[in-house]
């Protein structure tokens, strides 16, 4: 039921799609349509089959039952290139950029501009710059992609899909690492594309995004289509019930427990990611976190928030300066191993690159950080590992047939749960969380919020980074805001508002608290700092 007046055929029509991986059926008789000029949101819990469905559309999975029509003609793309030729381009959930290649080479990968077989670098770079400018990004397009932060890489991936100038654009959780202003820019662009008659498929777990851009919503649960409705006719409570199968209130239930002794103290802490002689990405931080407390770290791209956690965790070896105290004792952490031994855990923001070993099983990943304790005398105890994994994974709501499954075969959100489980395994006393709910469905998000309450009640201290402002404000007992590696503001729970945090993140609000809204020009300039 297209809500537009267009009597044309849908751009894409999938009927009766069924997909199996070996004995497991992950999609059952799913119907799905995309009309010109609409944003069609595909929603559902982790593992519901959303990514699988669009991988079929994008030519990644070629072996399925059912039919697929593009522009009213039967089609069966056998590769992403064929899908692109049909006019379908996909931004995949797990980014698919080639790390050592330059930004422009990545964007033109598979459609290289050539003359007589030779690559035309100049025009490629020029066009790349233009594309990125549309997204409000100014980068050195000759630098390898792997040198950029997660959020920038996600923007590059978006630019890559847009470069194809196609009429169906699929975005699988494109904003999972993006901040407010970047999301705004993406949404503007989506608006333009809609105006040009493109059909957009948008997958997200963020309710406020659905409310902002959805024209139509289709919900999957356990591989079955629950329903499909125009966004206006689907209030969010109803939508949640479709997704989760039960009621769920949307409030974040943060209960601040009684704060205990000081767990972490940083004095004049600086981080040098390239070693002592390089540039400092975090400078002169003073910070104290008490047991039972959640301290949020706010900041835009390039603020150094992630580097603060990595440096603290010993990931940069000797590349830190300043004093660190854990529970009142000065410590010198030069390797993740030492951090773990001291009861510190770090959930990184990129599960695929730094969080998980995709080729290993769920159990192996969940026990990797606690292996020393689980294998006394050096010999492993599979039974013990099984029990220990079970204990940390079950509360996270990961439903899977077997713990021996390779993590690479799990859905994105379920992978995230395994990454979290790994750190619960070591019973940390200080948890450093970088985007903990990235890609996690709302049901499980609430579980994790509950768990964070439980952890703090047990006396665990948490340092939290999240690009979702509502999450940051609702969960943090205190928020510090970084801008270019320095603390620009600190708020307690009562005084933190989205506006104040944002302006501090852009460097306009200082510790003194002189508050003023940034001019649009400032806003743009400041968010471009990559």
């Amino acid at each position, binding site marked *: 039921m297209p809500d537009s007046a267009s009597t044309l055929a849908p751009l894409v029509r999938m009927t009766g799609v069924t997909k199996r991986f070996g004995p497991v059926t992950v999609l059952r008789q799913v119907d799905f349509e995309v009309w010109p000029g609409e944003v069609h949101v595909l929603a559902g819990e982790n593992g519901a089959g959303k990514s699988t469905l669009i991988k079929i559309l994008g030519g990644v999975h070629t072996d399925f039952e059912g039919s697929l029509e593009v522009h009213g003609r039967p089609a069966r793309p056998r590769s992403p290139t064929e899908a692109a030729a049909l006019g379908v381009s996909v931004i995949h959930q797990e980014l698919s950029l080639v790390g050592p290649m330059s930004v422009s080479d990545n964007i033109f990968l598979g459609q290289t501009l050539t003359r007589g077989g030779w690559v035309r670098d100049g025009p490629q770079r020029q066009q790349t710059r233009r594309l990125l400018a549309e997204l409000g990004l100014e980068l050195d397009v000759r630098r390898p992609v792997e040198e950029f932060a997660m959020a920038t890489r996600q923007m590059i991936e978006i630019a890559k899909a847009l470069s194809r100038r196609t009429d169906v654009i699929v975005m699988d959780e494109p904003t999972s690492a993006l901040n407010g202003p970047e999301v705004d820019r993406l949404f503007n662009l989506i608006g333009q594309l809609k105006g040009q008659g493109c059909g957009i498929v948008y997958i997200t777990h963020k309710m406020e995004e659905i409310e902002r851009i959805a024209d139509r919503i289709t919900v999957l649960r356990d591989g079955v289509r629950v329903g499909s409705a125009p966004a206006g006719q689907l209030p969010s409570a109803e939508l949640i019930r479709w997704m989760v199968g039960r009621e769920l209130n949307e409030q974040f239930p943060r209960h601040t427990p009684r704060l205990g002794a000081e767990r972490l103290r940083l004095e004049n802490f600086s981080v040098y990611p390239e070693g002592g002689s390089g540039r400092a990405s975090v400078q002169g931080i003073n910070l104290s976190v008490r047991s039972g407390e959640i301290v949020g770290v706010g900041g835009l791209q390039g603020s150094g928030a992630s580097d603060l956690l990595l440096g603290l965790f010993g990931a940069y070896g000797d590349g830190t300066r300043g004093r660190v105290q854990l529970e009142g004792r000065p410590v010198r952490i030069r390797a993740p191993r030492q951090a773990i031994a001291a009861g510190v855990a770090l959930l990184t923001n990129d599960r695929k690159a730094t969080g998980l*070993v995709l*080729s290993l099983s769920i159990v*192996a990943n969940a026990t990797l950080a606690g292996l020393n304790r689980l294998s006394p005398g*050096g010999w492993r105890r599979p039974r013990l590992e099984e029990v220990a994994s079970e204990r940390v994974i079950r509360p996270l709501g990961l439903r899977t047939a077997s713990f021996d499954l390779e993590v690479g075969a799990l859905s994105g959100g379920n992978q995230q749960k395994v990454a979290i489980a790994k750190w619960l395994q070591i019973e940390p006393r200080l948890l450093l969380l970088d985007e903990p709910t990235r890609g996690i469905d709302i049901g499980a998000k609430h579980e994790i919020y509950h768990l964070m309450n439980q952890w703090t009640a047990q006396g665990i201290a948490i340092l939290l980074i999240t690009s979702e402002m509502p999450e940051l404000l609702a969960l943090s007992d205190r928020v510090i805001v970084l801008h270019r590696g320095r603390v620009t503001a600190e708020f307690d729970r009562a005084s933190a508002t989205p506006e104040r945090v944002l302006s501090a993140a852009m460097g306009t609000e200082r510790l003194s608290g002189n508050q003023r809204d940034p001019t649009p020009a400032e806003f743009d300039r400041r968010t471009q700092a990559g």
Partner: protein
Amino acid sequence: MDNGAMRRGGEWLKQVLSGPAGRAFIALVLVALVGVIFNAEGAFYKIATHRDALRQASVYGILACGMTLVIIGGGIDLAVGSILALVAVSCATLAIHWNWSSWLAIPACLLIGGCCGGLSGFTAARLRVQPFIATLAMMVFARGMAKYVSGGMKVSTAVQNPDGTYRYVDVPPLFEAIDRRILGDTVPVVTLIFAACLAVAWAALAWHRWGRQIYAIGGNEEAARLSGVPVVFAKLWAYVMSGVFAGVAGICQAAQEHQGDPEAGVGYELIAIAMVVMGGTSLMGGRGGMGLTLLGVLTIGYLDKILSINAVPEAGRLMLTGTIIVAAVLTQRRRRS
């Protein structure tokens, strides 16, 4: 109902065969089939043929054990052939010329192998030189050492007298003991040694903490490091083990030849790598296992034996082996759905 059971059985078979172990097994069965077809007038059915096939594959197999450990950790060890030669000449010198007892000679030889492995491991893991380069350097270095220790000549039981003439001494008991068959003349001792190496490597990989760590490193080194895995130490240890296994192979080689040849083991590292890959262990690291390597060793070992009992001349044998390795590895490739 019967139909359902059969279907389920079929599903099961399909699943097993679609795994790497299943595919490696198919390759082995195919090779065995070739043996049955070209059985060289029944020679393939003689016990002696199988005994020899196993014996000849054993030295390569021992090298493949260590190679598997290194490859799973995301590395490669090109030095094993040269280390084999160094240990072979050292072992011959110790046992024939210096009359060391086996109880001293064996640990000394393993120590030499382990030190060589440790050195390439240190270069690769700690100094972060690419494993290919680090072990290539070790390969050249150890070959030089082998020539230095032996003076460039085979170390045999022909011992030079002070007046320049030669006399023959007895083959040392260590060599006799290894170059023997037991259990009614059916099982070569070197094959037992191979089995023992396989068991040690398997236990370390499947049951020891270190095994899990090396899989993690091969799969995603950065994630492993951030999970507290002692990356440098675990990788170093893989190379040490590979060196020790090369030492074992060197002793076996010397014992079988009754001499230490500084030119021994040239190209063995490549055969060992072929065996590992034939089994289905990924050269990218992170996936594989000792069971797979056993299948790979048997496949290539039997292939060679079958070609030789059919008196295929060496030129043809090499060309055929190359072709068949590629064909087998192609069937090994993980299928994407």
